[in-house]
């Protein structure tokens, strides 16, 4: 089982062409293993990216160094996965 402990989903909304380009460049940084849930589409459109724990601080530092604001959309991905799994287990399973 892969776990998502310590992983977060960040939301970035590029507000200038420069910011948009910087965010697009993140897709090329494969060593960060970023998972774009919503890829960069244009100014004002949200970009949601799941960030593995080891990449969290480097990415946040990179964004802050470039003056790109972001918000934490999902604080703890594993907690949500756990909640979903427990909901599935609570649901009456099987078919008549």
């Amino acid at each position: 089982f892969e776990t998502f402990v310590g992983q977060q989903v960040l939301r970035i909304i590029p507000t200038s062409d420069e910011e948009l380009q910087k965010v697009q460049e993140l897709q090329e940084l494969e060593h960060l293993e970023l998972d774009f849930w919503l890829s960069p589409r244009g100014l004002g459109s949200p970009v949601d990216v799941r960030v593995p724990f080891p990449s969290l601080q480097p990415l946040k530092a990179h964004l802050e160094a470039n003056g790109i604001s972001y918000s934490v959309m999902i604080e703890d991905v594993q907690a949500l996965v756990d909640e979903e799994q427990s909901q599935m287990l609570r649901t009456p399973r099987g078919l008549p």
Partner: protein
Amino acid sequence: TSTFDYSAYHTLDEIYTFMDLLVAENPDLVSKIEIGRSTENRPLYVLKFSKGGTNRPAVWIDTGIHSREWVTQASGVWFAKKITLDHENDEGLAAVLEQMDIFLEIITNPDGFAFTHSQNRLWRKTRSKHSGSLCVGVDPNRNWDAAFGEPGASGNPCSQTYHGPYANSEPEVRAIVDFVKSHGNVKAFVSIHSYSQLLLYPYGYTDTPAPDQQELHELSGKAVAALSSLYGTKYKHGSIITTIYKASGNTVDWTYDQGIKYSFTFELRDTGLYGFLLPAKLIVPTAQETWLALKVIMEHARDHLY
């Protein structure tokens, strides 16, 4: 299927069992076709809704080509049941089925879907292995023979948008290609994803407008309006490349280039907090609103057969 819990997420086995039950309950309307096998040898099932006749014009709907987008497979289950409930009472649907067959592939990527239930909830791709790389899987929405391998897909096997070694390399894609070609009379094709709340039409690989752009834009606008009328969910519509980004080798560019004019790809809920972890209580509302849009597309195809 009347006691099946449509407001919950289900495993592959449960959904396959559901399909068998639906067929058993509606033998004069629903049949199950195996169109191929996945990389890990799972059957690729399509439900056929038909009131008879041979090789009638058809609507194709698929859900779950990206395995982690669980609301799509769950919506596919709901659509299947909805068709059996409404095929006589709903005037629009009945009229569609008078002239056309509906094909519904609920689990387009069963290997990936099983993997999301057992190993990695956020797995998106297929589970094929490629020599020379430790990374597994191909993006089945970049594996089609429509500007395959051009910008808008990745050549890196570790990428989420890896296009694969060659077009149709994924058996999940190849099976649909073979089916559509051999059928030869598919008039509308809707491939369903989540989560961006969009209804998109070709092209993704070029910014040259599709020859039918005006009609597709008007139709998608009507479909989105119908969708939004239920719960006020906001959708955008437009061509793939102008609305999101360049995407080569994608499903509906291939279908459109095959002559299927009414080719659309959906992105269902939600753009908000949850994404792939959409709470189960949102499944039914998502499916209900999407169904209204699907009906607009199907009815338009029926009224404008070509």
